[in-house]
């Protein structure tokens, strides 16, 4: 087990170095003088130019620049925003809870609906229910979610007037951040109606962000269940007279869930990419919108830092899933 853990950790290191190389090169690959490019129409004074050149280290040889960058990264310093002048790391952690809250809600919704749907479809394989469910899953999987978001806004915000169009909570409420999660903070604030407002703001973005993971989980659960249900030990369990529900939910589902858990782990990348679009459309103040806005504001230190943080997050989650997989399934450890 220790060997397995170490070998996985060892592959993490070169990938991490590669990821820092990519985010490091990003600013340096911009055509022309990066400082002039970033300043854009704002322009930049001569002193500020020199100051920035020193801040980015552009006056040094490239390997020294990378070395400094790497040292900074390892100490949690990702540079400063060009626009707000605040450290990129601070901005990231200020906005991250919003994205995390949205992602947790989305993945919870996807798991709660997707796994039962996949199981029921597998049990009723070939029947109408299975066909309808799997067709819907394929539609969900093929969905351009930015359009899906607009459609939901038209129907639920425009025609029915049930949900607000943007933000995390109505401007009528104001209370301090405690956890950064609006659902919890609004409850803690004790203001009447605040929680309801937070929920109504959260519903549409959650549905939009959950759509593709839901489809993937339902499809994966179904095929994993079908594979497991044809195994010999299931036949044995049935033959010895166990009730069908016990065979399905205890014997089959437990083993079928192993590949499903892996897939859920791999969906983190999908969620973060989805957050870019979802947050932009619903003006959700999370890291997805932050990165998109920064690209348009040419705030490249932010883009660079965000890029690195997201890649590292995806890598850490994948590593965790990989290790967990080894814990659940001893066969993987040996190979």
């Amino acid at each position, binding site marked *: 087990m220790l060997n397995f853990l170490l070998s996985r950790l060892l592959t993490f290191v070169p*990938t991490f170095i590669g990821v820092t190389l990519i985010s490091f090169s990003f600013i340096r690959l911009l055509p022309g003088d990066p400082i002039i490019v970033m300043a854009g129409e704002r322009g930049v004074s001569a002193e500020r130019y020199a100051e920035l050149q020193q801040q980015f280290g552009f006056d040094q040889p490239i390997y020294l620049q990378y070395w400094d960058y790497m040292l900074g990264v390892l100490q949690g310093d990702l540079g400063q925003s060009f626009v707000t002048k605040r450290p990129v790391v601070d901005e990231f952690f200020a906005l991250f809870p919003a994205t995390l809250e949205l992602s947790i809600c989305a993945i919870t919704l996807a798991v709660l609906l997707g796994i039962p749907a996949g199981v029921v479809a597998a049990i009723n394989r070939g029947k109408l229910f299975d066909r309808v469910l799997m067709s819907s899953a394929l539609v969900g999987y*093929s969905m351009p979610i930015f359009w899906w978001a607009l459609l939901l806004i038209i129907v639920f915000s425009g025609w029915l007037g049930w949900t607000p169009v943007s933000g995390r909570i109505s401007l009528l409420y104001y209370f301090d951040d405690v956890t950064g999660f609006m659902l919890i903070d609004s409850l803690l604030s004790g203001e009447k109606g605040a929680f309801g407002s937070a929920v109504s703001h959260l519903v549409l973005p959650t549905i939009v962000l959950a759509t593709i993971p839901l489809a993937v989980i339902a499809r994966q659960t179904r095929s994993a269940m079908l594979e497991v249900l044809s195994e010999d030990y299931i036949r044995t369990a049935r033959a010895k007279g166990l009730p069908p529900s016990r065979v399905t939910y205890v014997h089959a589902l437990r083993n079928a869930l192993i590949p499903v858990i892996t897939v859920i782990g791999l969906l983190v990348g999908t969620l973060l990419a989805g957050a870019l679009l979802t947050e932009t459309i619903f003006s959700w103040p999370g890291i997805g919108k932050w990165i998109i806005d920064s690209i348009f504001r040419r705030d490249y230190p932010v883009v660079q830092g965000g*890029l690195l943080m997201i890649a590292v997050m995806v890598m850490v989650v994948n590593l965790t899933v990989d290790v967990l997989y080894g814990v659940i399934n001893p066969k993987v450890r040996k190979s």
Partner: protein
Amino acid sequence: MAETTVSVERPGRLKEFWFYFRENRGAVIGMWVFMALLVIALFAPLLAPHDPTQQFRQHLLQPPVWQEGGSWEFVLGTDALGRDLLSRLIQGARFSFIVGVVVVMIASTVGITIGLLAGFAPKWLDTIIMRIMDVILAFPSLLLALVMVAILGPSLLNAVIAIAIVLQPHYVRLTRASVMSERHKDYVTSAGVAGAGTLRMMFITVLPNCLAPIIVQAALSFSTAILDVAALGFLGMGAQPPTPEWGTMLAEAREFILRAWWVVTFPGLAILITVLAINLMGDGLRDALDPKLKRS
């Protein structure tokens, strides 16, 4: 002798493929829709009733024909600049197909070559190649494409290049994995004994036997490419207005979302139908080409 066996076997394989593909009704429907869209894309200028960029100033935001105020002149209505929505959608099919084809061609050619190389290369080179692919795969594809377009400058061509780069590691991994499982089979060894050079082994002996999963991946990345280019266009980092690219059309339509549902609904529907048709086909291809999954 060898000639005859080949000519007997070939139609058999195709027939077998068609037999399994046909069993999946969704796949057949997907194929017909795909064909129809392909015809539309090929003959777009002939099929479109109007020039997709012509502005009819008297007909701004005119609703589709079945709604009050609609007319047969603009079947699906017009956008905020008075351009015919149907003509723009038809023209947009072209862009989506070109994007899909070009991305798959670049990504698969580069990916397969690197994958074969990794499969045949000495261990150290293989490790380096695969670590580089891991790095690319650590980024969500849309984000990496977005950042690349930020470097290259927003345009349809740059979006296509970025997405091709982001999608090719999947081909590398697939190709390498199949090469690894094929490499030590007897027929490869015998080809080596018969004096086949490395290049011949890679492309002529081994590659044809690795194609099945790659073809399925090609279908998958065709639809991913269309979705991602539309997403980039929607974010303003893909095709630029007035190009009638579906994602870009959606971006332009956003501000009229509550006033004119049709300018938002139809471009997205076009994306969904195209992607769905390709994914349906992809499922059928997988069933037909992957013997392990045939019975499930």
